[in-house]
Each structure stands twice: as structure tokens, then as C-alpha cells.
């Protein structure tokens, strides 16, 4: 046994010796060797699928090779999300752009730190720790693009309540209460409920964002509350669709209004069919690509370096689109790259700013 150990340590030592210093971050890069990394939780859910597609769509649109695109999945393991980022940065960090769906708040902090240390560039989405902003000297944190989940929650809840005619009982499917968005969306619902006393929350359960777990829960609710249920609120579309299927099984699809959040294609089709009332889209394609667009513009010198941007340019909330039967048609088909030309152009990367994120 002894000598293996010896082996191990000698090896480790050798490894260290072999180390070389890494290149320091460069302000501008040749577009051909910019590396684009999409870092997200997993990819089995449609929303993440669209994030991934969006990213690839962008590379395609500016004529970059597919091998410049790196997809990183952390399976909900924050430590891994950070390690994966660091691992990639062994080479050419100055020309690496991260577009991050943070696994949780602490991860944001760690990844931004990493960016600062290594000179890599990072754009974060959804939410960041309170009081921690890009413009606090985090020069490589290009921007944080928040989603005002409260608004999302409010607007879908509003749609739901309208569809119910302002009174009756609802049940709510929560996501993993793991991140701020989940909580804010629900707060949105609660605020709406406070305003519309006619509507009562019969029950709520968490279905882990997941369709297959939402199905039996809704089934059981239907059994428990029967026709007391006048509407179903879900913290994301996947669960909403699970609910729709449960309703379909009970022959109630389309008869009981359902709302969700995310605006994934299936949900949009469901809205079209009238099986869902509304969903609020942060536009996954956009979220999966805008970070790349920003990084691309910065690194190719088409916009000044982020340090020179205004605070709001570096920390803003995304325009949300509430999709309901009135506007559903324009979102039915997955957008072609051209549809985003407007958003990706270096002078338009802030086009969807709706005010500073908190």
C-alpha cells in the first residue's frame, strides 16, 4: 500500500511543478477564439433546452464555429457549477464569456469572484445576492439581467383570476423553494389574492418544477376538492402542463383555467388551445443568448468595456411577455435567429431593459 501513496504524492508534486502561468485577460479578442459557455442546472426540462438552443442560435447568427460553444450542467450541485467554470478557465480566460443561470445565490458570488480573479467575463440571470452588484468594482461581471419574478407572478395570477371571473378556489403548485424566483412568483400570487378576496387558496404543494410529480398531486386535489377548484396556479409551465394532463384525464382540460411561468413552446401551444390561460415568458432563447451577445460586443470592442457602462445597463430587469389568448399567435412558432437580430446587435443589447433590478 505504502508505495502507491508515495506514487500519489510524487505525482501530485510533479503536477504542481508542471504548472505554467496563465495568460492575462485581454481587452479584445479575435472572434474566432472567443469561447461561449452556457452554465445551467440541467437540460431535461424544456426551459433549459431553449436556453441551450438560444445560445447556439447566437453563435450561428454571427458565424462562429460550434466548438466555441460549451455547455455546462451542474445537476443542481453549486460546487460543481463553480468548479466547472474554474476548470474551463485554465486556458484563454480573457476571451471566455459565461452566460449563467445560477444554481443558487451563493454560486453567483463565487462565479463572479472567479471571473474577477481569472479575467473571464460573466453575465448572470434571474437573481443575485442582495446588495451585490456588477458596478461595485466587479469589472468582469458584464451585467446581471434580472427577471422580475414578482411581476411574472402577479401578471399570470391576474390572468388566472380574470379567467375565473374573480371568485372561486384555486390550488397552487410550487417549485423547489430553492431560489428567489420561485418565492417571488408565489408572493405575486399572494398579493393578487389579497386584492381579490373572492378567490381563495385551497391548497398548495411543491412538485419540484416537475411535470410527472405535478400530475398525481393535481389528481388527488381534484379528488379532494372536486368542483371547488376553479383554477390552478403553477410556478412554472412544466408543472402547469402536468396539471393540464391531470385535468385532461379527468375530462376537465380547458374547463379549468391553468397558468404557469416560463413561456415554453408547449405552454404557448396550450394557451393557443385554451387549455392554459396564460404564461409569462422571460424568453429562454433570449436569456440563453443575450449574455453571449454582450460578451461578444465587449470582446470585439464594439462597445466600451463594461466598467464604463451605466449602473442600469449592468443591472436591469428583463421585459417579461405575458402570453395569453390575445397575443399567443405571434409566439406560436420557435423564433428564427433573425427574430433576435434586433436584440443581439451591439447597439441594442439593452433593448429589453425595464428598469434596474433590485
Amino acid at each position: 500500500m505504502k508505495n502507491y501513496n508515495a506514487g500519489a504524492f510524487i505525482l501530485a508534486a510533479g503536477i504542481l511543478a508542471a504548472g505554467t502561468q496563465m495568460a492575462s485577460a485581454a481587452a479584445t479578442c479575435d472572434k474566432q477564439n472567443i469561447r461561449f459557455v452556457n452554465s445551467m442546472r440541467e437540460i431535461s426540462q424544456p426551459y433549459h433546452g431553449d436556453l441551450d438552443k438560444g445560445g447556439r442560435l447566437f453563435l450561428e447568427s454571427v458565424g462562429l464555429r460550434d466548438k466555441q460553444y460549451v455547455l455546462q450542467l451542474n445537476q443542481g450541485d453549486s460546487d460543481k457549477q463553480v468548479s466547472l467554470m474554474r476548470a474551463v478557465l485554465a486556458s484563454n480566460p480573457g476571451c471566455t464569456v459565461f452566460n449563467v443561470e445560477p444554481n443558487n445565490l451563493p454560486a453567483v458570488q463565487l462565479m463572479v469572484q472567479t471571473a474577477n480573479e481569472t479575467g473571464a467575463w460573466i453575465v448572470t440571470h434571474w437573481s443575485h445576492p442582495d446588495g451585490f452588484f456588477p458596478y461595485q468594482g466587479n469589472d468582469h461581471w458584464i451585467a446581471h439581467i434580472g427577471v422580475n419574478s414578482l411581476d411574472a407572478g402577479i401578471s399570470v395570477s391576474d390572468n388566472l383570476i380574470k379567467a375565473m371571473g374573480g371568485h372561486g378556489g384555486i390550488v397552487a403548485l410550487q417549485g423547489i423553494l430553492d431560489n428567489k424566483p420561485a418565492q417571488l412568483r408565489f408572493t405575486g400570487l399572494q398579493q393578487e389574492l389579497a386584492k381579490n378576496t373572492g378567490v381563495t387558496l385551497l391548497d398548495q404543494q411543491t412538485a419540484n418544477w416537475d411535470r410527472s410529480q405535478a400530475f398525481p398531486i393535481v389528481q388527488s386535489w381534484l379528488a379532494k376538492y372536486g368542483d371547488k377548484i376553479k383554477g390552478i396556479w403553477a410556478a412554472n409551465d412544466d408543472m402547469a402542463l402536468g396539471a393540464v394532463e391531470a385535468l385532461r384525464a379527468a375530462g376537465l382540460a380547458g374547463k379549468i383555467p391553468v397558468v404557469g411561468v416560463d413561456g415554453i413552446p408547449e405552454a404557448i401551444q396550450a394557451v393557443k388551445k385554451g387549455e392554459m390561460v396564460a404564461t409569462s415568458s422571460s424568453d429562454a432563447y433570449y436569456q440563453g443568448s443575450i449574455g453571449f451577445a454582450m460578451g461578444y460586443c465587449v470582446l470585439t470592442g464594439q462597445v466600451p468595456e463594461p466598467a464604463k457602462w451605466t449602473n442600469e445597463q449592468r443591472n436591469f430587469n428583463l421585459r417579461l411577455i405575458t402570453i395569453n389568448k390575445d397575443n399567443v399567435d405571434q409566439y406560436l412558432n420557435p423564433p428564427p435567429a433573425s427574430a433576435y437580430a434586433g436584440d443581439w446587435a451591439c447597439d441594442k443589447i439593452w433593448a429589453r431593459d425595464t428598469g434596474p433590478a433590485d
Partner: protein
Amino acid sequence: MTEIDRERTDALTRPKLAFFGRDVGAAEIRRHLLAWAPAVALVVLCVGFAIGDPQFASTTNLRALASQAAVPLILATGMTFIILQGSIDLSVEGVMGASSLAFALLIHNSRTGLDLGIVALIGGTLLGACFGAANGILVTRLKIPSFMATLGMWSISGGIAMLISGGQPPQIRDMAMRMWALGDIIGVPHLTMVAVIFVAIGYVLQSYTRFGRYSYVVGGSEEIALLSGVAVNRHKILAFTFGGLAAGLAAALESSRLGLGHTEIGADQMFLTLTAVVIGGTSLSGGRGGVIQSAIGVLILTVLANGMIFVGVTPYLQKAVQGLIVLIAVVAATWHLRHRLRVVK
């Protein structure tokens, strides 16, 4: 090494044999008690919940229960034979993921041009069977303990599922299949019927076929099985294959119910199935139990889960509860086998 093995088996069997001599009667009684316990527990649970909330006994909820039990019933039936033989299959969740994707991509869907209808169902099921067969071969040919082999296979099949999902979970557009999967006849969901048929098939296999009977033999004593010229390895591979097939079928059905090929479709199913089989009275050491017992186990857990939603308990507790149940059930089932010189790893 056969010499050593011989000595070894002697050394290990001797105390056990001495044990049988005086234990048979007691063992019989215990077995009868254990045999009835699950059924009783099931009734008690139902009554309890029904009292707690009359709605629990409503036809709608019974239908909900029936449809919620469908998939676990199929899985448990498959798992039963593996455990009867004294092996175990931890790969269920991964296999389900892969089969779900395969099925969704073969049937009319949002990604491929294919539209194979029922053939897709068969395809998905067969893929599951293949994974199962692979498990069996690893256990019998490479002689890897089943919990290790299937643990690895879990990861492999899960990985394959992720690869073919590739970020675009295929939506199932075959409306006929969808509606059938969601529909019911006189209040009995189609899937439940399939499940019941599957359990029935399982029962026939267990009671009226060489495969089934020899599963008991293999679980009872592999040495004796070999001495009697039983093709132990073949029947092991068969059991794993059947288990995989069950997982594949379950995945395909669940997918058509949800309308999506989903890597996570089997989330938490392995544990549920295992628990169901064990509390049904099929001992993990093999040789005892059966399909019907496992079915009862499934019903217990389904009622428990459904009831928890009724009572409003956080679903997170369910896994913990299941873990506890498995432990208690297994201890109760094998406590009498304890012996000072028994070597258990």
C-alpha cells in the same frame, strides 16, 4: 479453489442446518403472520384516511388512486422476480428515462419525423428489456454483485437518456395514444387495466411457469438449484430482463400520459418499488414472497402518498418514511435467521 469453497460452504451451512432442525414450526407461524400483515395494514390505512376525510373514499379519489398505482404496479411486478432470486435492481430510474426518450422519439413527436404508433411502445419497452438483459449478463457472466452492476447501469442508462434528450425533450403528438393513456372505461383508467393485466401475467409467470418456479428455487438455494441441473444463470438473466421490460413499459405508459419524453420520468420510482416489494413480504434475501404481495405493497404506498396529500403532509417526508419502512420490514422478515457465526457483508 473449489476445495476451499467446499469447506467454506460446509462451514457456513452447518450452523444454519442445525438451526432449521428446531425452528421450522416457529418459522411457519411467523411466515403466516408476516403474510397477512401487509393486507391488514392496507385496510387500516384506507379506513384511517377515509375517516380523516370522507372525500378520500370518493369515486374520483379511488380513480386517482387507481391511476397513481398503475406505473408502480408494473415496476414492482418486474422487480419482484429479481428480488425473489435474491438479487436487486437499482437501475430502474435510469432505464425508465432512456426508455421514455426512445418511446417518445419513435412515436409521432416534435423532434423526429417518425410516427410508429404502437411499435414505438414496443420499442421503448424492448429497450428497457435490453438494459435488463445487460444487468443480468453483468451479474451472471462477470459475476458482479447485482447491487453494484445495477448501480452502474443506473448511471449509464441515465446518461444515455440525457444524451438522446439533448436539451429538447420530445413532445408526444400522437393524440390517439395520449387520449388512450389518459382515458378510462367505466371509471377504470386504461393504464390501471394494463397494470392489472401485467400483474396477472406476473402471477401466472410466478405460479405456472418454469421461470417463476425456478426463481423461487434460485432464491432458496443456488447450490441446490445447480445440483438439480437448473440453469441458474439463464433464469437470472431472464429475471433482470423481465424487470427491465417492466421498467421500459412503465416509462412508455407514463410518457404517453404526460405527453413528453422525459429523462426524469422515473424520479424516485426505484425506491418506491423496492419499498413496495419489501413491505409486500418479499424478503431481500430471496426465495419468499410474490407478485401479489408486491402489488399489495404498492397499494399501501400509493394510499400513503395520496393520503399524505389529503392530509397535506410535505411530500419530502415520503422518502424518509419509505426508507424507514424498508428497514423495519426487512429486519422483521429476516430477524429469525440471525446466528452468531453468520457472516453477512
